[in-house]
């Protein structure tokens, strides 16, 4: 049994050491894999805020991931083709600058999260799961037939966007950006969970009636959580698009929403590092099982089943010996 705190430190250490080692040994692809894991972890950390703290089982978080991705895709596409983006009332220029893209991605996914959240929070439980899924599917089918930006084929951005002072094309530098963002968001998440807002949100999840009788609005608390959560996942989407230099409607697919959720459950719901550990393990399994056999999905499935059955509270619960997190 390891204390959760040490486990978290260990994970952070691994996320620093492995890519550095890979750089030293010129295993560039390991860095790419690590970047993928870190970005997916970021998306899941975002969802964990809604799901773990707020009890909002969103099966549509791919929506925000996709919005982040398309923000990057569309802005960079216009920059790359030297065309302006016509928004009817006014036009804007595309950009290849990461910070600007992130900002736009965060703003757009927040706005969409406000709308989806307001509509979805009328429901609860499984209905909430399904209505969020429905919104995700709408975006999915919309982008598939959105011919202006490639439809199902998606959009290729040939060169990774820039970050002032760094060469993002060097894998370890881009990894560094993603890793720092992940750490910042984890820090934010940790503080948030202990803050007044976090306490109230936690109560709103467990007992909305009580929350109301002390004069707080559980729906509004959940909405704010949902929006913050969507913004983080949106940011992850923008990074993911930059990692691949490519966006496509699959970023909106329900399978993807499911995968983000999977990371959380795998790692441990409501645990700060649960999504990180889940994403790292999933990416690792996905990559290395594939090398062993064509039918690696079977092994992946069996491993996942074993984890659900024998590791209550996810991997973090198993390792830290504090099984059965909440919910």
């Amino acid at each position, binding site marked *: 049994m390891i204390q959760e705190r040490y486990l978290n430190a260990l994970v952070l250490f691994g996320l620093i050491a492995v890519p550095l080692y890979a750089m030293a040994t010129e295993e560039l692809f390991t860095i790419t894999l690590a970047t993928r894991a870190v970005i997916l972890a970021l998306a899941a950390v975002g969802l964990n805020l809604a799901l773990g703290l707020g009890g909002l089982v969103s099966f549509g978080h791919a929506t925000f991931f996709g919005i982040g991705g398309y923000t990057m895709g569309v802005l960079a596409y216009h920059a790359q083709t030297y065309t302006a983006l016509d928004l009817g009332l006014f036009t804007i220029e595309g950009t290849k600058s990461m910070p600007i893209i992130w900002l736009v991605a965060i703003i757009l996914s927040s706005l969409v999260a406000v709308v989806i959240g307001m509509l979805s929070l009328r429901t609860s439980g499984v209905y909430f799961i399904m209505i969020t899924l429905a919104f995700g599917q709408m975006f999915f089918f919309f982008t598939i037939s959105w011919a202006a930006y490639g439809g199902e084929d998606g959009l290729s951005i040939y060169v990774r966007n820039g970050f002032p002072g760094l060469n993002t094309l060097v894998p370890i530098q881009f990894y560094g950006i993603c890793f720092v963002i992940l750490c910042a968001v984890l820090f934010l998440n940790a503080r*948030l969970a*202990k803050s007044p807002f976090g306490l109230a949100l936690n109560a709103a999840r*467990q007992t909305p009636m*009580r*929350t109301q009788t002390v004069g707080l609005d559980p729906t509004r608390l959940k909405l704010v959580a949902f929006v913050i959560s969507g913004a983080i996942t949106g940011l992850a989407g923008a990074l993911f698009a930059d990692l691949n230099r490519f966006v496509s409607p699959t970023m909106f697919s329900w399978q993807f929403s499911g995968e983000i959720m999977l990371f959380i459950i795998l790692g441990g719901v409501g645990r700060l590092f649960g999504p990180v550990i889940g994403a790292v393990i999933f990416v690792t399994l996905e990559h290395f099982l594939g090398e062993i056999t064509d039918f690696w999905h079977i092994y992946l499935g069996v491993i996942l089943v074993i984890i659900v059955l024998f590791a209550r509270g996810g991997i973090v619960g198993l390792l830290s010996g504090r099984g059965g997190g909440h919910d």
Partner: protein
Amino acid sequence: MTDLVLETRGITKSFGALKASDSIDFDLRPGEIHAIIGPNGAGKSTLIKQISGELRPDAGQVFLAGTDVTQQTTRARARAGLGRTFQISELAMEDTVLQNAVLGALGASGSVWRFLKPVLSDAELVTRAEEALDRVGLLDARNQRTAELSHGQRRQLEVAVALTLRPKVFVMDEPMAGLGAEGSLTMTRFLDGLRSEAPILLVEHDMDAVFALADRISVLVYGRLIATGTVDEIRSNAEVREAYLGEDA
């Protein structure tokens, strides 16, 4: 009539064919404990839900300290000074006792939109919460998880959370439910002291407690208030004996 802390006028609520509240006029004066008794299913909890805002009445009005709050949410009524406890404990079971109490203090302070500073480092909120816990005798259990509390302790915590709100009026739905004989006595003594702070609307089936505490008693039967009076008046009311008390009291 503005010195009434709480008043309902003609509250009516139907569930299909069933009239759970039938034109109920009820009031609560400063400094008193006004008990509502009545057979099971008479509509006591339904009335409380309409007072607290959980249910909207079909007709009639609710006044809190003279203001018509009929159209207001539970939340707004809580802010206007209504402190409620539930028939079945509504607590954040995974949180600690202190966290539950702090939640009340937080609600009362209204400063929930703070995202970075740990809530337990807010001395004002914590002090307020600890005071309330101390009064119900739960201070020693403040770091225990609520799920680990015994039934009686949970009832005490319910009251403590209401205390942190420093309400103008308490609305309590069966606070003795599930308490043992000894626990009921303790709770009775505690409520007795509480009336000086704010008047209490008390729904309770424990007649020992009701007779010991109530300044006035109202009797609700089939959604209608059939009598209001002092303990002795109610005890000797034949209709009440037949509908509710039986030959016992």
